[in-house]
């Protein structure tokens, strides 16, 4: 049987996949699998890594995703963070951007977790690194009005964190962007920062993708100027699934496309899967994989996840 890693390698090489790979973000799910609170296990890189690996093994996922959520980066920007309902939330505005963010606090733990996860999983599963994109981060930290204008202020931090993340040697790096990028025209500030991040990832020989959600009726003008190697589409701003024409448009660019599946709604997931399978077949099995519509929460239906894995494993050209 082809391993998840082999499948994802086919995606990265641009060759036909025996079936689409399934690589969802499962941090919330991992907490449930381990029966522990996220606040507890995210203090210990080894426990965190073990839980992610255990979750991937339990559901027989094709890859592991090690993520740096928005609060980790916001915290490095000087925002205070509090835990509410076992989720970290930002509790105040940014103060002083940390000079060596990768060396301290929760971010250091998260990077070490990623290193361990990838080191252990590399032989059998795809290793995906995901982090909040700089444009969304700037908006969250500095507010809607100033976010874009102050993008340069967080650039050194984002560069350092991205480099540290690349040094954990993932197979791909995915930036998660929301409305801050998805609903604006892509201009020079966005292009400049993504140009640097793309160059940086290229130094580590890592393809770069963008997970885009909260987009409008159409994708933001100039998105292709960011020259991402691939895109992943989440929900649109009105909570709808990505339109077929948009998917078709993106599937022909770079390495291809990932489609997010809702992890708590089997019917909606099947609808998306159907769309995805059509695209997969239309592309002769090239340039396509499935992921989740966002990080799966601990409330996700486990049967749905099992069912999705089962369904995807049956897909053939």
């Amino acid at each position: 049987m082809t391993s998840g890693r082999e499948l994802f390698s086919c995606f990265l090489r641009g060759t036909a996949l025996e079936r689409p790979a399934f690589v969802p973000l499962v941090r919330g799910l991992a907490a449930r699998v381990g029966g522990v609170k996220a606040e507890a296990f995210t203090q210990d890189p080894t426990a965190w890594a073990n839980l992610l690996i255990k979750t991937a093994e339990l559901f027989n996922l094709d890859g592991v995703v090690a993520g740096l959520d928005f609060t980790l980066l916001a915290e490095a920007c000087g925002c205070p963070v509090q835990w509410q309902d076992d989720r970290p939330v930002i509790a105040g505005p940014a103060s002083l951007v940390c000079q060596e963010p990768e060396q301290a606090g929760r971010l250091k733990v998260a990077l070490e977790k990623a290193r361990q996860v990838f080191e252990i999983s590399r032989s059998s599963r795809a290793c995906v690194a995901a982090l909040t994109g700089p444009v969304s981060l700037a908006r969250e930290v500095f507010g809607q009005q100033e976010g874009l204008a102050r993008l340069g202020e967080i650039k050194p931090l984002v560069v350092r964190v991205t480099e540290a993340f690349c040094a954990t040697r993932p197979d791909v790096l995915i930036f998660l962007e929301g409305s801050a990028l998805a609903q604006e025209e892509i201009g020079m500030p966005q292009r400049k920062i993504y140009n640097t991040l793309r160059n940086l990832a290229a130094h580590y020989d890592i393809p770069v993708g963008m997970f885009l959600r909260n987009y409008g009726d159409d994708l933001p003008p100039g998105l292709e100027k960011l020259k991402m190697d691939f895109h992943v589409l989440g929900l649109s701003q009105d909570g709808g699934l990505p339109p077929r024409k948009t998917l078709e448009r993106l599937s022909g660019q770079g390495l291809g496309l990932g489609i997010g599946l809702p992890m708590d709604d089997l019917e909606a997931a099947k609808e998306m899967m159907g769309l995805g399978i059509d695209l997969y077949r239309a592309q002769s099995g090239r340039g396509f994989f499935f992921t989740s519509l966002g990080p799966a929460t601990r409330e996700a239906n486990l049967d749905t996840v099992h069912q999705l894995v089962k369904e995807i494993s049956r897909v053939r050209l």
Partner: protein
Amino acid sequence: MGMTVNIDIGGTFTDFYATEGEGKGLITKSPTTHYDLSVGFMKGIKSLARGYGRSMDEFLGGTDAVRYSTTLGTNALIERNGPKLGLITTAGHEDAIFLGRGRSWADGGDSQGNKDLARINKAVPLISRNMVVGVRERMDSFGNPVCPLQREDILEALQELVDKGAMGFVVCLLWSFANPAHERMVKQVIEDEYPEDYLGSLPVFLSSDVSPKSGEYTRFITTIVNAYIHGVMADELTKLGNELRDGGYQRPLMLVHNTGGMKKVSRTRAVLTHNAGPVAGLHGALTLGRHYGHQNIIFTDMGGTSFDIGVVSGGRLQTYDFIPVIDRWRTNIPAIEVKSIGAGGGSIAWVNELLGNSLEVGPQSAGSMPGPACYDLGGAEPTVTDADLVLGYLNPENYLGGEMLLDEDLSKEAIKSRVADPLGIDVVEAARRIRAVVDARMGQAVFNEVALKGHDPREFVLFACGGAGATHACGFAPYLQVDKVVVSGHSPVFGAYGASTVNIQQVWDKSHTMKIFHYAEQCYSQDFDAFNSVVEELKELATADLRLEGYSPEQIGFRLELDMRYGMQYNLTKIISPHMSVSGPDDYQAICDHFTEEYSAIYTPEATFPMGGINVECFYLTAFVQTEYLQLQPQQEQGDAPPEAARRESRQAYWPSLGGFKQTQVFDFDLLQPGNRIQGPALIEAPETTYVLEPGWNFVKDGFGSGVLRLTGAPEQG
């Protein structure tokens, strides 16, 4: 001749040079990936395969040899990621490596730092004091056992080191080069206690194997350095070998040595790979010089991180006169001498507030990550490459043949914030000064290595190599007053080109003191066996070793060198022996005459001291097997005027002697014909480098595809 792939890893770029048959070699560069050198290594090989229009499998499957000059060992020393080692030495001498020798605390330090005696720190030892144990034993200087070694003592020492976490053992006993029996006994005991088939087996390194020469400090340190980098290198090279094999390569990986030869990985001592890249480049200069008929060459290689300087004098490479330093450690390896200073395209410009806001360039380099600001990898420090870009010398869309786009705005921003604003000058003036400072540093360093070592630079040809060599040659060459500067077509990857020219070779050395001229009796030694038996012993070792590499004795050539000195003197002088063996006093006399000649050339004839007699102290037998390399065939010259097709769109470039930016003609190096001449100012763009031809300089593309530069006007004093 089949396909060969030659690789040289530098601090910023990894260089590749492939040859196939008699066709033109193919060159490429890839950013050095310090986090895992194999990534940049395999990227470059993929690029070569694409260049030949083949798949990786086809390309590597058809490759006869991959030759590699690596910095893995150097990195291990810099990062200090070697294993925890235990040292077993003669009781009473446990502190020898910590006391050091002479001014060894200054070895490998920068000249400024070494002057600050109040703050200088000794290098942190590779083996801590608590990991050194002594065993009772003693050989005398003739190799006769004076105090026997007891197995119980060895076991006790072993247990102590293992309990403290030793992951390997270094065994360095006094006079072991004269008689290694005790060191071998220690090894035997270790192997008995920790056999290779156990997971806990521990590697053992004997000084009598690694460095069988007199001088305990350098012998101990050479063995320790070798042991320290051995494991790291073995792991990385095994991984790389596996990647090559997975890619289809079916032959052994060859490693270039700092002695000017190469061997299979499996037959290479780690310590011999240090600084092999610059040595390979120097060997390339020797080879290219033979094509030109040049006997005296100043070799320079300006890369991204360092500026290497070597000398070919009288058609020969020079080994270190004194003691090669690896990182911070004095060793006694018979390495070829190449000096490096921290000056390259990635050297960082900074304002030294402690010296009245003087502008300094280097020695720190931005390396490949983040690299110069214009690489747009997040770097914010201004570098020499940034200055070259701002001055209009580099084409931002044709850097590395267009593989890397440069961002001039980032260069200006970096120079403005870190240099121009602190100095109160504009960005262009700051860029000009950065360039002038780095050129002056390089020019002065070359002058020191050549003129201050007794050579007249005007009798030499300057080879300007490295990715930035052609860009800065007109800047540093005037410091030497050489008549001719040669920038080879291979210069951007000259270390890799040099690797393609080295032979299978290793130097076998052994200390053995013998007086061959007795002044009081005015006669030469009658003991011929003593000389011949050492040479025969070394020959046997070399032949057995090369046989294991698959070469027959008929293919092996030998060269004998001797360390000699006058009795009662300290300094040694190395000579090439006119005889491989001696059979009568005349042979000894020929050796002594040759020594006297060499000594006189170095110290003047008045300094000779035959009254002390003449000693041979050490034997160096170089065993080599000639390898084929691409012979350059001179092309017919086509006339002075460059073809119209070679002219590219002109652009603004800054020429201090012309008062500022001027519209400057740009040429395509590849489209120039042999014999074409260009008068500066002009810019000539090759895929991997840019020639900056300053006003007053003349360029000719010669029949070997090199650019030959000559200063025809007044030297510019930037």
